[in-house]
């Protein structure tokens, strides 16, 4: 359970630090008129906080899978499977997708709608290409006889890759909403937030994939 505990430890430390800042030297029993400094509502957009909380939940989920992987790996029947070289290509594609959305984000903050559209297309196409690439990698492994039931290492490989792909699909739904809005020619300010959220989510899934891929390679 170490990976999960490390993640939770960091998260809890953040929560405690935040709470200390909110509560030290505060005398709750003292009445006072509301002032700007006491404003509860943060400066961040609510939807961004929502995404942040969701990413914490998703991180918890992946950390638990990694923990389960680490515990199950110790048992004697574990036979690591060879990673198809295609996975390197897929990793590259996912990286390009992340760069594309970062590009779109930058363009959005500079109010360049063309750049936003280009970046969004790159990000979405790469995500779809990545999922197709993962499916091909599955077929290669299946053809080579690495079935899901034949070894826990295989089972974990299929499970982790599909879980990651499911999260990517969820991102594509948000991406689709953003890109239709961008194409409808609405104001760039109404697209900017969506682009930013997509970019953050794509980066998150890239980091998760890099960790999972590293785990698969090293074991």
């Amino acid at each position, binding site marked *: *359970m170490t990976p*999960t*505990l490390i993640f*939770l430890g960091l*998260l*809890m430390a953040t*929560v*405690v630090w935040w*709470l200390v800042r*909110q*509560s030290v030297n*505060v*005398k*709750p*029993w*003292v*009445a*006072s*008129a*509301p*002032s*700007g400094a*006491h*404003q*509860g*509502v*943060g400066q*961040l957009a*609510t939807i961004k*906080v*929502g995404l942040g*909380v*969701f990413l*914490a*939940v998703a991180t*918890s*989920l992946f950390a*638990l*899978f990694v923990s*389960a992987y680490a*515990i*199950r790996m110790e*048992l*004697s*029947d574990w036979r690591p499977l060879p990673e198809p070289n295609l996975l390197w290509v897929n990793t590259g594609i996912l990286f390009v997708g992340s760069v594309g959305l970062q590009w779109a984000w930058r363009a959005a903050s500079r109010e360049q709608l063309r750049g936003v559209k280009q970046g969004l297309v790159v990000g979405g196409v790469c995500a779809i290409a990545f999922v197709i690439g993962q499916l091909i990698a599955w077929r290669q492994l299946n053809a080579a006889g690495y079935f*899901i*039931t034949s070894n*826990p290492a295989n*089972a974990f490989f299929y*499970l982790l890759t599909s879980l990651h792909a499911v999260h990517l699909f969820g991102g594509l739904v948000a991406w689709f909403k953003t890109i239709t809005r961008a194409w409808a020619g609405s104001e760039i300010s109404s697209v900017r937030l969506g682009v930013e959220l997509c970019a953050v989510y794509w980066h998150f899934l890239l980091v998760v994939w890099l960790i999972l891929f590293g785990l698969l390679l090293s074991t």
Partner: protein
Amino acid sequence: MAQVAHDASAQVGPLEVEDVELYHPKTFIGKYIWSQDAKVIAIQYAITAIAIGLVALVLSVIMRLQLGFPNTFSLIDPSNYLQFVTMHGMIMVIYLLTALFLGGFGNYLIPLMCGARDMVFPYVNMISYWVYLAAVLLLVASFFVPGGPTGAGWTLYPPQAISPGTPGIDGGIILMLVSLALFIVGFTMGGLNYVVTVLQARTRGMTLMRLPLTVWGIFMATVLALLAFPALLVSAIMMLLDRLLGTSFFMPAMISMGEQTAYDGGSPVLFQHLFWFFGHPEVYIVALPAFGIVSDLLSTHARKNIFGYRMMVWAIVAIGALSFIVWAHHMYVSGMNPYFGFFFATTTLIIAVPTAIKVYNWVLTLWRGNIRLNVPMLFAIGFVFTFINGGLTGLFLGNVTVDLPLSDTYFVVAHFHMVMAVSPILVVFGAIYHWYPKITGKMLDDGLGKVHFWITFLGTYAIYYPMHYLGFEGLPRRYYAYGETAFMSESAQDLNAAITIAAIIVAFAQLVFLYNLIRSLTKGKDAGHNPWEATTLEWQTTHTPPRHGNFDELPSVYRWAYDYSVPGAEHDFIPQNVPSEELVAARSEHQEA
């Protein structure tokens, strides 16, 4: 005691919080069925949770009839008994208590108490309820599939849960796992709302340190649930794959019914780690909202500020953080490394410290308070008693050497029912009696409420106290019948019969409560806006029940939620949205008159 700061009379600027665009329901269906109003969603959650909870209550009565009077009733066979144990536990812990505290009270109280118009993502909030309902319906469906619901025990330990011979191996276990996965998805949608609403949608002046403890409890419980439920999701997914595709995540090589199964090398202990990594925080997911609500009930009805508010907040946070590093105390008999046992016993005893702080503070809140012994207060005080009793046996079971002989006996059954079944449910009742006037505009009947309280409170002691003795004798849990067991005294069976009679009486007393709930809708006394003379924002709304959007104008908050019996104030309570200059004006008018 409240002090008035010097800057309290400073000029208050216009409201800085922007009003949000609310969705406007046009039809009956939009208003009450596919509603995005957190208050309606709360009631939907509560009704569904209570309905499925009643099913679990009936299951427990049937089990008690079998245990108390074996060979008398032929209602169930041994398979049914295991199925009912499983469903009773799972429903009560997850589908009733978690859903009711977070989906029910969370949805109703968070926006009102924070001074928000609604949850921040109302559409997602609506979906959350419908996914929860689907999860409940799938669970109920498992009663009707061939083979019935799973009988693996609420912990669903493999290899038992998916081995031939366990009841419900065909459809029941699959439906259970899918239902749990759906519940978690639905909860995550709701949970995002609860957390982000507390963080982002508080009204002007509502600092974190002015939030009522109810909101703190629900907030921290939601954080725990968001982080811990994924562990249950992971174990449910992996067990589903083991069951459906034949992988061996958890399933070891074994011979079942004389045949070698296809499984090989899996680790049942891995499942236990994942399950309890969820399972222990789950205890606090249920307990922390109860802690928060009971703090507010005690303070309001004792007309006294909560003792040690900041300590209470920190205790909630500390309990939440520590609850992630005690999980293996549920696994002392799993054959783990003894050093681990030492570690987890230590953390278990440490978590008792913030918990004890809370208990002391509740008692000190009552001390020299102007106690109004109404029904919500009775339930709140009943909770403190029961929680102390159940908590103390937790210290027994938290120690490895004491736990080993007591593990899997009725002592454990008695412990967890006292601490995480009866205690939270007493708070649920107290909270319903407390907030029903705001939700419906009518008071619940006081006399019926007191009958309900005394039968429930004393009755649960009649049920669970004797179970401690049965546990000491070594009576194992989850057995359909005990027969002539040599180590058990003959009187053990008499005790079991007495427990069953008490259980039936308590179960029927709940009908009084249901009758009261329904009758008071039409025949109850009008409640007015603030029948308990409480300070928190939900009691300061212009309309009772609050309309869509909660407040006519978003309130500004000037003080914490605990200004009761403030010396010099005209009334013995000062609502959170009353500025100090109004008080001063009221006082001088009073003196002139």
